[in-house]
């Protein structure tokens, strides 16, 4: 067992970063924590600082003002760190691809391990994405 897979062996802690989303992906992420979906039963939870996290969830198209902070957040995180881009905006830029404040999708700036497309992705899709990510790690 390598160091990377050992790091991901236990429950994943997630830090969520909104890089310019319309709120919907963020609400669906929070929805995962609430009674109907309740991913906390798997020990997954949202943490307040990226320094405690195993997974960085990035939602939203990346605006030019957020870009330096996104890169700084990624650099501050202890590795190994899995990055998940959620929503159509996070994966490709979506409907805002032609906007003047668009700094490129998430994977242009930081390496991304999993994509969860959808506008917004349903909570089931998010959970499925994380489970597939765990299988990959």
């Amino acid at each position, binding site marked *: 067992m390598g160091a990377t897979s050992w790091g991901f062996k236990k429950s994943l802690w997630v830090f969520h970063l909104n890089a310019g989303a319309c709120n919907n992906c963020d609400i*669906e992420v929070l929805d995962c924590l609430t009674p109907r979906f309740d991913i906390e039963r798997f020990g997954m939870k949202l943490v*307040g600082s990226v320094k405690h996290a195993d997974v960085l969830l990035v939602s939203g198209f990346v605006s030019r003002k957020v870009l330096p902070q996104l890169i700084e957040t990624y650099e501050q995180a202890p590795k190994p760190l899995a990055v998940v881009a959620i929503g159509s905006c996070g994966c490709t830029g979506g409907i805002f691809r032609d906007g*003047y404040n668009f700094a490129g999708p998430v994977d242009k700036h930081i390496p991304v391990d999993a994509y969860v497309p959808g506008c917004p992705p349903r909570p089931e899709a998010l959970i499925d994405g994380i489970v597939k990510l765990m299988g990959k790690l």
Partner: protein
Amino acid sequence: MSTIIPIGPFHPVLEEPEYIQLYVNGETVESADIDLGRIHRGMELLAQEKTYDQDVFLIERICGICSASHSWAGSLAMEDIVGVKPPDRARYLRTIVHELERLHSHMLWVGLGGHILGYWTVFMWGWKYREPILDALEMITGNRQHYAWYKAGGVRRDVADEIWPEVLKIIDEFAGHVDMLTGAILDDPVIQGRLKGVGILTKEDAIHYGTLGPTARGSGFDIDVRRDEDYGAYDEVDWNVIVQPDGDCLAVAVVRLLEMKESCKIIKQCIDKLPGGPIATEIREFPRGEGVGHVEAPRGESFHYIRSNGTNMPERHKMRAPTFTNIPSFRPRVKGESISDAVLIFAIIDPCYSCTERMAVLDPSGKPFMTGKDLIKLSHEKTEKLRRES
């Protein structure tokens, strides 16, 4: 001598990346500043590069929570240009979806309020009871959020009559949960202590700052676009505008809780009275002209202005969401309060920054690119130039 406390931009209590500076003296907050612009997506320019049909999908994505409000306001503005009215069935269907959206938005806020106060039970309850509303929206429109259902002239898809008993059942159960939550919140002495008399916004300030929606109605400022303007089916059903005079955080919370009951009433009456017939008026082309649409979003009035030059794309599309005018009211509210109440006071307007983002151009040195004086000087120079030329 005041200390500066920074909150954000990526802070556990904020859903969206915003930067708030609190100027504090000891425990007392003296003033506050907010730095916006991280979610600015250039929506107005993008809207001018798309056709009217595509525009509805774009403006829906201004905000994830008010997506029905924005697409309805945009559709109203487009109908205003052409001069058509949607058919009766479309008016009722639009009203039902819009009120369902208000229910899920207010319930979401109740949950977040509980989270900020440290009442995790309220957070879990609020979000649990919100789920059936999303199911009802999915049954009617086909999606939990971002319904893609409104269009200029009416709605996109018709609804089968079989689903209404199920929707009515969801609404009835939800109304019971709202009663229970209202009782639990208003009877709890700790919640009363945290909310009552905290963050007072007087009626004069509410008018002066141009607040809208529940924020204004919690300060005794009686303003509601649903009643004041002619749109939707609101004038054909029986409901009340909820106004509370106190202006503190409790008053705004009470306005939201009681409004949910009113929304349940509106939805039930609309389903009862739902007429048959076509669901959309066909619009062949957009003539030259301008149109305005405003609807009462869950947070206040959302306003859309479209100018058409006769092509299939708008020449100008101006949007204004309610949070834009509600945010400045944070300053009079927070002055003199303790730091522990600041985040609560900030959340009381139910801020939605993605609606609000504007762009400011800055010089690399950090100075404003153009001040008001510079703009006036430019204007004077242009007049002088024209004068010399003539």
